[in-house]
């Protein structure tokens, strides 16, 4: 029963994700039981190493679709804020990486394994470091809660691609009796690229996940010493932008409305975080980093 399910998963993956060598997996595993068990095992949880490898593949694919902003000073500035925030969390040891992409649209993304991307269009519409911290903290929260991984697991096609890659790599590791970390990495990285092509970033996360990331994000920003209302200001700003005006189609189709998000945040921020409302907004350094005014 378990084996059949696993075999079906693999079979269904072949036409869609032809780039992955699924044919070989099945050949290798004439003993379908063995492969099946590996898929079962692999699908359960991702090790941190697997999560990071998959995330790097996703990021590489993502960067093939857009490009990094050329201002390296800004890139390092965003990394310092992000790393400082990540330090305040239970996953502080991930290889946290932050980046600004060169587009005027308003957007932010989180990849499994600790990579967070914001668009220049979003950054330049913010008024302070506490607002940027709020955005980064929201994305960090998605990584902490493995929301993208959950989305990947819950989609049959995506899940088959990722677990297939894991099983294939696991099989090779088994055969070469250990140490084939590169095999694992490259297979998962390929799967990550496929996920990007297959619309990973175009589909919304569950609304509940967005609200959860909002709630966790404001706490992370507060822990980092920032004014918790920075993110409230960001949502207020977003409420004024019409999707068709800014070309930021993805943010708007993949998130609940800012007004709904503000209403949800109001349930926690004024009660839990009010006493931190006087923490710094850090405006001067933010303006400097943006090379502005």
């Amino acid at each position, binding site marked *: 029963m378990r084996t059949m399910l696993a075999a079906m998963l693999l079979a269904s993956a072949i036409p869609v994700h032809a780039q992955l060598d699924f044919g070989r997996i099945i050949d290798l595993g004439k003993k379908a039981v063995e492969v099946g068990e590996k898929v079962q095992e692999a699908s359960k949880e991702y090790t941190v190493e697997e999560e990071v490898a998959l995330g790097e593949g996703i990021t590489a694919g993502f960067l093939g679709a857009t490009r990094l902003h050329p201002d390296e000073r800004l890139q390092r500035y965003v990394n310092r804020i992000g790393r400082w925030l990540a330090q305040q969390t239970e996953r502080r040891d991930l290889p946290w990486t932050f980046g600004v992409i060169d587009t005027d649209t308003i957007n932010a993304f989180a990849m499994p394994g600790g990579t967070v991307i914001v668009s220049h269009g979003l950054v330049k519409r913010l008024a302070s470091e506490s607002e940027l911290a709020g955005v980064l903290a929201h994305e960090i929260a998605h990584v902490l809660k493995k929301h993208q991984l959950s989305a990947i697991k819950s989609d049959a096609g995506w899940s088959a691609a990722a677990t297939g890659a894991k099983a294939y790599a696991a099989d090779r590791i088994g055969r070469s009796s250990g140490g084939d970390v590169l095999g694992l990495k490259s297979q998962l990285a390929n799967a990550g690229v496929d996920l990007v092509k297959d619309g990973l970033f175009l*589909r919304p996360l569950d609304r509940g996940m967005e609200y959860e990331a909002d709630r*966790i994000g404001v706490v992370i920003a507060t822990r980092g*010493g920032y004014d918790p209302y920075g993110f409230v200001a960001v949502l207020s700003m977003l409420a004024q932008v019409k999707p068709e005006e800014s070309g930021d189609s993805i943010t708007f189709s993949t998130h609940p409305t800012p007004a709904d998000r503000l209403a949800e945040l109001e349930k926690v921020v004024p009660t839990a975080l009010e006493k931190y409302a006087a923490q710094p907004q850090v405006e001067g350094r933010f303006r400097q980093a943006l090379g502005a005014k």
Partner: protein
Amino acid sequence: MLTRLTPLLLLAWLSFAGDALAQEQAATNRATDLKERPAFEAKTLAPLAAGAPLKVLSRQGAWTQVEAGGKRGWIRAFHLRFEATVETSSSGGGSLGGLTSIFGFGGRKAPETSKVATLGIRGLTPEDFKNASPDQAALRKLQSYRADKATAERFAREAKLSPVAVAYAGEGGGS
């Protein structure tokens, strides 16, 4: 005619949107008080009805400075309702009409052509993703920007950011 004008209008809007705090139009989303200072105990300058129009001037933590009915004062950030201030002239199927529906909610619909291009902006469209080939060099570059722990801590101290211990909201009591 309208549709030909639209991209220009949009570009103009985009270029000034960043520094436009002072231009923000908003309204109250409930009946609330206009306070003299950003504090609960401050004197109430005037009661404001739900839906009262106002102009946003600045922000300080939980409070937003506004001008309402000719008076300047402060109201709670959560008592504001913002709306898109710029009416788009393309709403009736102009050059950018339909952009929002490209992605729909939860569906993987066939994309229309990338209309973002009319803005001269490189947006992220489904096509961009579909045609992406992995950029390993960009990935390495991105990773070279990472900050280490010591750098992040120094950076925080420079802005007088002190870490505080706060539990996640809702922890231990439902969600």
